[in-house]
Structure formats: C-alpha cells, structure tokens
C-alpha cells in the first residue's frame, strides 16, 4: 500500500479522508486536521492501542508503521495516508493469542496490562529480526515501553520465553 508517487490530500468540510492498510486490510478513515493516528485508531474502534502520555515518552501507543514500531501519538493522522499499519488486534486475539502474548502471561509479565500492547509490538518486531536476542538486545528493543507495574524483569523473561516458543515452532514446521 506504500505509494510511490507524489500525492496530495485536501480537507473537505474540515476532514481528510485517508486510506491505509490496517492489520492487512484496506481501511479508510475520516480524520481531523489536528488528529493523531492514535486517536484516529481509537475513534475507529481499534482500542487495543493505548494512550499513556501522548508525548512520545511511554510507548503504550506503539504500532507497526511501514515496517517498524513507531509512536502513534506522534504521527499526525493525515500523514498515515498510504501507510501500512499494524496494531495489537492484528497480532493475536483472546481466543487465539500470539505466542508472545502467551509468553507474557506465562512469565507473569502482565499486571494491569496497559503497557502490554506496546510491549508486544516492540517484542514482535525484535523477534522477527533477531530470533534469539541477548538480554541487552531485549532491553534495548523495549527501552521505550514503560511499565508502571512490573519492574520489567518478568517482561524480559517473557520475551526470552517467546523467543524459544517461536524458534521451536519454526523448527517443527
């Protein structure tokens, strides 16, 4: 969906219409000029992505944006036009959790859960690129995801468990 030509969008009746790929499917949002992607997602029902600080500091709004975890609270919604966006809803569901989500539960890495969507997004990107990361690599990948509850130890453990799960799954295929 990432387009390769000069485009422009004009607001009509004070709203921009943006087209994006969201969790693998085409989507169209009508967004206000001063709206950010985080608010646009939540307003359109994608509430898995959380708003913690709204200043780029906490990482609870992390989404996949054109292949990398980015902060949805810092992305003017109109600039998401033509982008490929992935949210926690595209990772796993309550019935069919992703192995990373299972690992967070198994390790006891979830307390209130507010930071977890962002953490899982960052962890998934890490494990897709570094299947067997060192502890330092895990800490670095998650350094923008703040958690007020856990103290991080169990979340780092969760990423190690997830790494093992995913490698085992890959080997058995």
């Amino acid at each position, binding site marked *: 969906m990432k387009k390769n030509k*000069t485009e422009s*969008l004009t607001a009509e009746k004070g709203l*921009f219409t943006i087209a994006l790929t969201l969790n693998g499917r085409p989507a169209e949002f009508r967004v206000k000029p001063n709206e950010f992607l985080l608010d646009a997602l939540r307003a359109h029902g994608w509430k898995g992505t959380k708003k913690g600080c709204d200043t780029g500091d906490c990482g609870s709004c992390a989404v996949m944006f054109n292949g990398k975890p980015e902060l949805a609270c810092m992305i003017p919604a109109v600039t998401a036009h033509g982008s490929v966006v992935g949210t926690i809803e595209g990772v796993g569901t309550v019935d069919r959790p992703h192995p990373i989500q299972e690992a967070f539960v198994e390790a006891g890495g979830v307390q209130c859960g507010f930071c977890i969507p962002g953490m899982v997004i960052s962890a998934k990107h890490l494990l897709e690129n570094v299947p067997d990361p060192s502890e330092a690599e895990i800490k670095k990948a998650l350094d923008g995801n703040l958690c007020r509850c856990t103290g991080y130890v169990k979340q780092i453990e969760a990423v190690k468990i997830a790494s093992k799960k995913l490698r085992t799954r890959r080997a058995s295929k």
Partner: protein
Amino acid sequence: MNNLRKCVFPDNLNAALTALGDRKSLPFALAGGTLSGKNIGPETVTLVDLKRLPLAAIKTTAAGLSIGALATFDEIENSRVVKGWAGGVLCAAAAKCSSQLVRNMATIGGNIARPNAFNVFPPLLLALDAKVTVAWKGVAKTFPLAGLYDGTLKKIPGRDCLITGIILPAASKGLKCAFEKFARTESSWESYITLAMCAEVKKGVIKSARIGIGALSAVPVLAPKAAAALTGETPGEAAGKAAALAGDLAGMRISPKSVEFKKEVAAALLRRFVVSLA
C-alpha cells in the same frame, strides 16, 4: 494544526521544493514528526510530509561520508558504514537519543534543522567539521553546519528550504572521537552538558582537535581554547588537565548556580578523552 487544509506527499525533491515554494499555501515540512509533529502552529495550512523522499541513503563518497537528511537515528546507529567511520562515534551519538521507538522515527535532518540546545547531532557534527546541503527551488548549496544557525542562510529550514544531506570529511586513521551526553538518565533528552571531542593523533602527538559543546546554548559552539591547548601535546593526564575547557565555558551564559559543576564535569570528560588517546 487546526488550520491544516492540505497534505502533500512528495516522492521526489523537486516536488517537495515546489510544495514548499508555494508560499501562499503556508507550507511546513515534517520528517519523523518527533520534534514538531505536536507543535504545528495555526500559521500552517499545508503539511509537506517528507517521508516518501529518497533522502535516507548513507554512503561513502569521494567527499567523505554522506548521510541523507531523512536517515533515522536507528538507521544511523545500525549502519555498517557509520560504524566503521571515526570509531563509530555517530552510532554512539544516535544511540543516546531517547528510546528505540523515537529512534525509529527521528531523522538527522529534523535534529539539526532548528537550533535546540539538547539535540545530540549538532555539537557532534560541528566537531566533525560537517557540511550540510540545503536546497530550495532551483538552488542547492553546501556549507559548514554553523551556517544553519548563524543567520547566513537567511532561510528557515522546513519552511523555505530543505536540508537534503550531511557530508562529513573523510576520516583519517588517526582521528579519534568521543561523544558524551552527561544527563540525569540514559534516556534524558536534556543533558547538563554534551561534549563531542575529536582529535587527530599522529606518531603519538595531537596534531589537531575540535571540541563541540552542546546543552549550554541554543546552538552548539566549538571550544577553540581547549583545542589549541591540546594541539602539539602528547595524549595523557597532563595534557587533559591543562586543556580543561574552563576558558571556553567562561564566555558562555551559564547559570551561576551550576557553572562550577558544569566546568568540573566538562574538565573530567575532556581529561578522560585525552587520556584515552594515549
């Protein structure tokens, strides 16, 4: 951002400069958006999103190391070319910016475009004697980094013109560099002092030095007195102590409450660097 009526997504430099050149449309350019995304004022009617421009390449050229303005901190930190250049000092500086999530978005062009005391790249690029290329409709100019801040450009980057890239002169084998952001925590944006220190060492003697100071003024400054004191010296504790930096800091407007502390920290960091050159 309430007055935004149009958003342009140029995929080539010409189209971006045309969009910025249309002054009547009150344009403003945005790259990663981590510095200005939240602060786009009511004077902006057209947003020019730079993200599709092919200006993120990092490569060595005959002129030296060339970094596209849209290269992100993450791309710079993980670039093999940059890792092998001047001991990887640019990677070290990129890693000092906030968090992985910010580094995935923030670009080097956005970091240097406007004066900001705490941004990591301006003092380092100053110490490395970097040049920037700036373009506006029909014109491209390359000049030393300081030209962005001293008024000679007479244009506002991101409104009237675009930074397209940064060029660093070829690094000699004897070039040693260090970047120190002395802050409360690893991820703090604000630092007490930022020092970028570069020295050319040949046959055990410091042939030249350039030291960039950040965090104490809106724009980074060089420390010519300390650099002169180091030139011709043998690296080690004595040379480090003698250079100090106090002379260079004396001319700056630093709060009297913290000036002694900052002088002491600066002296210690410089001494550590000079000792490491031995």
